[in-house]
């Protein structure tokens, strides 16, 4: 937010963090990526019977630029992987990813040359949902887990490589201080 740079880790900024996290977790805008049968369960999850509006995530956006939660619902082939990654890259930070179903999480029953054996090979995933396909309740549970994660302030919104680079920079800074 910029405030933390001016004020540091004081009581004021940590309280603001908590309030912002509370706002964020209750208005997640999902980007539905229903690329096979899991998509049907994802639609049920948005419909009145399961009613994701109770958790503030009913605004399904078909433009990645307006979304902050990517639900990958279905078998991801190698050819589709590029598309999934492109959609993820277009989403503004902070963003979270749900890998819905067995195929997305691990390739599932498609142990073949054409299917990526788990989307975590090219995307940072926050929550994996088991099932083939998972029940809408299961997806709601995943959403609640994402909300808890946001509230804890442990959002891993940046890709792993960026985190590694940051750690390296911090390490260099520490070493620089020691040298001085």
């Amino acid at each position, binding site marked *: 937010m910029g405030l933390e740079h001016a004020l540091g880790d004081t009581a004021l900024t940590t309280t603001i963090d908590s309030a912002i996290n509370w706002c964020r977790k209750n208005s997640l805008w999902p980007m539905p990526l229903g690329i096979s049968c899991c998509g049907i369960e994802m639609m049920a999850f948005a419909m009145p019977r399961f009613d994701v509006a109770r958790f503030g995530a009913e605004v399904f956006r078909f433009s990645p630029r307006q979304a902050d939660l990517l639900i990958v619902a279905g078998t991801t082939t*190698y050819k589709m*992987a590029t598309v999934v990654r492109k959609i993820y890259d277009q989403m503004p930070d902070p963003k979270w990813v749900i890998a819905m179903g067995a195929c997305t999480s691990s390739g599932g029953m498609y*142990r*073949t*040359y*054409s299917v990526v054996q788990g989307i975590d090979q090219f*995307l*940072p995933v926050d929550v994996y949902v088991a099932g083939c396909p998972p029940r809408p309740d299961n997806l709601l549970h995943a959403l609640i887990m994402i909300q808890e994660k946001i509230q804890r302030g442990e959002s891993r919104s940046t890709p*792993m*490589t960026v985190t590694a680079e940051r750690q390296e920079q911090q390490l260099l800074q520490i070493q620089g201080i020691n040298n001085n």
Partner: protein
Amino acid sequence: MLTTVIEKLKLHFSNSILDVREFRGETTICVNKADIVKVCTFLRDDESCSFNYCSDVCGADAYAPENRFEVIYNLYSLSYKHRIRLKIFVDESDLHCPSVISVWPGANWPERETYDMFGIIFDGHNDLRRMYMPEEFEYFPLRKDFPMMGVPDSIPLPRK
């Protein structure tokens, strides 16, 4: 009736017909590779054959030293409601065979699919590109010597 179809084919193309098989009521005719377009044109245009619908073109890999690949044409007649299956053999040393898109334009995509999966090259095809696999993919997945989990790193994944 199919018996008249077979009789007519034997009459007109005695040198092109290699074999006629029947299994569980399905008739398969093995045809000489070079004459497939002539046979198909006859089957489409003849009054009592009238195979005006090419329902599928597919391939098969016998993994044999000779005549390794087969190209199979499943034909259907919308007027007489009868079906027939044609088969040609393609050797590994010469993967070319004539395209039938001049007879049935609908054979365009099935032939592309056969090319994508088996690497059989259809001469005369106007758009012989990959169908399912990425353009730069080098292998043919439905061949028997292709590993089921694919060749590692043959399809690039986006960077994490």
